[in-house]
């Protein structure tokens, strides 16, 4: 590992001050991703500012009748919180499918949003990767790309976002609260938080330099009865999704009145299935309608040499997730 400065921030102000004082500084949450990447020489920060001990590790009610998830709260303590389980079971389910109990105990909510891709070209410093080293090329575009994106990729980058939590947050239409270095606060819609690679795949998200995630705001309790998170992976735990689907449904009078639907493992960001959501509103929750929605969801997929299977598998997965969500007993 390269030498670096290490600062333990006790308050947000200290963290924001430190990030401006230090050259090439990064915030450190649980370290479950950043420290790994430093060991691999992929991330080379010259200073780490620990923000896992700040006081924003709480879960509280917010003004819109939902919950505020503190950024410093661990994934395990969030997913297992009684109010999260009760009000956002979809989020809890998705979070508990991630990684291992040990990693969830360490990983923070803020850090989860900032997880970097698992693309093997990103991890191997001798390989071309525009995300790691802008301008070096994309090794995966014509290489080993069975695990890569089918939506929204560019010739610069075909990587996917690895988070499970974020897929549920996309379906739930959360917002992200951010503290800026000048001391002000801003709110980012979840769908605008992560970005597509375009010509700048080195930027995973729309945070400005030095900005600190302080909280995730959830809207009013959603999909408490009909929800499901389906994660297709190579083993039953401690594996990233080949693809995943988060689905929440509200059904009144035999028709769908609200729906949240997003996929993971298919794009540079959690992929909200807006066309499928729009289609389902006002429709009966039948398998046939779910299949129509799934077809719409995958209609604009663009596959690479080795990942064409993700399209038919994605369709099956969406239908299955919606069926499971609908048949779920509260």
């Amino acid at each position, binding site marked *: 590992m390269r030498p670096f400065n290490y600062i333990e921030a006790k308050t947000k102000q200290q963290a924001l001050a430190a990030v401006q004082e230090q050259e090439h500084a990064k915030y450190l949450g649980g370290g479950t991703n950043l420290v790994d990447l430093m060991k691999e020489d992929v991330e080379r920060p010259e200073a780490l500012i620990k923000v896992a001990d700040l006081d924003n590790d709480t879960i509280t009610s917010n003004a819109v009748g939902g919950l505020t998830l503190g950024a410093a709260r661990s994934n395990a303590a969030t997913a297992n919180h009684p109010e999260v389980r009760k009000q956002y079971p979809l989020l809890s389910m998705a979070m508990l499918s991630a990684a291992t109990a040990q990693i969830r105990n360490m990983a923070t909510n803020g850090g989860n949003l900032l997880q970097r891709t698992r693309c093997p070209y990103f991890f191997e410093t001798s390989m071309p990767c525009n995300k790691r080293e802008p301008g070096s090329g994309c090794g995966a575009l014509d290489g080993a790309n069975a695990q890569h994106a089918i939506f929204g990729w560019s010739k610069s980058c075909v990587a996917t976002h690895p988070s499970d939590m974020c897929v549920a947050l996309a379906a739930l239409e959360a917002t992200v609260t951010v503290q800026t270095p000048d001391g002000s606060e801003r709110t980012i819609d979840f769908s605008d938080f992560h970005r597509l690679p375009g010509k700048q795949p080195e930027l995973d998200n729309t945070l400005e330099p030095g900005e600190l995630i302080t909280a995730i705001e959830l809207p009013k309790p959603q999909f408490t009865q009909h929800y499901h998170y*389906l994660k297709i992976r190579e*083993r039953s735990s401690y594996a990233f999704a080949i693809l995943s689907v988060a689905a929440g449904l509200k059904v009144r009078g035999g028709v769908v009145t609200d729906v949240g639907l997003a996929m993971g493992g298919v794009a540079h960001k959690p992929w909200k299935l807006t066309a499928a959501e729009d289609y389902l509103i006002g429709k009966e929750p039948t398998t046939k309608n779910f299949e129509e929605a799934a077809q719409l969801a995958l209609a604009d997929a663009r596959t690479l040499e080795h990942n064409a299977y993700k399209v038919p598998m994605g369709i099956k997965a969406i239908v299955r997730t919606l069926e499971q969500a609908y048949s779920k007993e509260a």
Partner: protein
Amino acid sequence: MNLNTSKGTGNPIDRVEGKLKVTGMAKYASEFKVKNLVYAQGINSTIAKGRITAIDTAEAEAQPGVLAVITYKNAERLAQYDKDLHPLSTTSIQPVLQSDQVHYYGEYVGLVVAETFEQAQYAARLVKYTYAQETPDIDFEASKGKAYTPTEQSDYSRGNVAEGLAEADVTLDETYVTPIEHHHPMELHAIIGSWNGGNVQAYASQQMIDNAATTIADTFQIDKKNVRVMSPYVGGGFGSKLAAKQHVILALMASKAINRPVQLTVSRNQMFTNTNLRQRNEQRIKIGAKSDGTLTALSHDTLSHTSTYEQYQEACGTVTKMLYKTPNNSVTHRLMPMNLQSPFAMRAPGEATGSFALESAMDEMAFKLNMDPIAFRIKNDTQVDPSNGKPFSSRLLNECLRLGAKEFGWENRPQKPASKSEGNWLVGYGVSAASRRAPYMKTSAKVILELKNDAVWATLQMDATDIGTGSYTILAQTVSEYLDIPVEQVDVELGDSEYPVTPGSGGSWGAASFANGARAACEQALKDLKDKAGETAATTTVALMKAAQLSTLEAEGTAEPDEEYKAHSVFSFGANFTEVWVDKDTGVFRIKRMLNVASCGKILNPKTAFGQIIGGCVMGAGMAIAERTEVEPNFGNFITRSFADYHVPVNLDMANIDVVYLPEEDKIANKMGIKGIGELGITSVAASIANAVFNATGKRMRDLPLTPEKIFVKKEEAA
């Protein structure tokens, strides 16, 4: 009952070294306290083929704490192979940093030695290499034109396969693929090596002490008498620690250069590139059978890759020579040079992969014949090894299959594929037969008796290793049995080349060889006591010590195979049963339960023996459902480079594993009736799982591992 007061073998006592391990007191190779210790970090090539044109070590050398940067330019000259394509063995020399040539991605191209581990690691990144790159051979398909017959060729045939196939009513001709896999024991390869003015001392994580000493001596061209290797605890090896690897040589080379002891630990990432691998195999099986199920022909042709500079062949076809009765049989193995590191023995080499092909093919054949796969196997049983005409010392394969069928509830197996479901899951049962050579090898041991407080205490010494399997425990039990003293009065000391020579741990010969070696030492001790005591009524060890007026006695004994052993074919046998549930839409599947029935001689300690078979089943499941190392198609590096990418099963994947041992004491195998169990557990498990997937879905999976993606895209074959 306090199990630990039991005497002798056969009791499920706790591991005698268990407390040391769980309290961190058992020292592994890199944990020894050695004065003046420094740390080394290997540097790996970042091209797969070519040569080094320039090396800039200035920045690395300027770092605080850095003591040396060793590359081919300043490395000491070591022994060289006397021919190209040297066949690898467990005592092969391990030359390293001897030229500017790069043969594969990740090959060692340098070493940094520093006062601390962190300094060495950091400086290693600062050494700059310039390469003249060439196009590497990294594509299996494209390399097929270069296939050759290995120097130590292992082709075999009896009868005439073509004629046998012509006589058959039903035939099969299919190819089965197993991917590159890696051993990955939990304990990383490591050494603390001291050159010590030519009195070499190495704490090294090795399965075979004596062979490691040979490799060190031969590579540095020094007398083996001056090499001491110690490996008291080994955190798994799975074949990767059978031989000393290049890092052992690197550490000693560095120690010689700077005259201080050097610790070198191979990182998890380097465990992919520098401690060998299991190569990708393509195995083509042909079977002919009469409509009543009688086999008329069986052939097994294996194509594998090896490195461009060494040969290793995995004898996948061995199992096909001996498992079933058929007059016509042929087996071939071919190798292709590729720009990947050399393969080497891994987890039941030959049987684990070979049985996947053979036992999948037997299942396919049973389906074609419309026969129960158990009945088909029993129909073709043989009590004589058809490959050499020798009778099996014992063979209870049919009994394993029958008992397993009863215990597992085989009668509930869906008769037709894809005919049983539970909700969204398709349910299937699979079976396979397992066989694994049960070798027994010449082994020496020393026992030291002491009379203290009216009791005899014994210390057993041998250079055997305990690679996590329970050697300490079964040896304490053996000494306890033969000297008739409580097991707590036995101290076992292993893993030091100063002790009597054993074949080490590997190939499932450890338990049989070590225990008989210990037995021979104990028998010698009792004989010496009786000789010294003269005429006496004493029978117990204590009474004999007193009668002989001795407070201590040392005796050495050697056990080795006798004529009976050599006149027989000695194998362990087993059967594996699996139930899988496969999602009807997504390709996701779960192993719901597994039953392994084993007949493998006397069970020395049921507790450690169950652990071994269960571990074998988990490894077999890993091979079936998850493990694979993928080669990047353009650059030749491995894209699976940590445990996040290289998947082994998790608890949730495994559900319930039951193990049943058929009671057996094979006195032909050796005097104690012991046969190996270490590798039997993994053998044929992958076939059992793939056969269950076929039964559940009608999809015949011939390409491991069975990932959701592969099952999803596979078309149904069953009518």
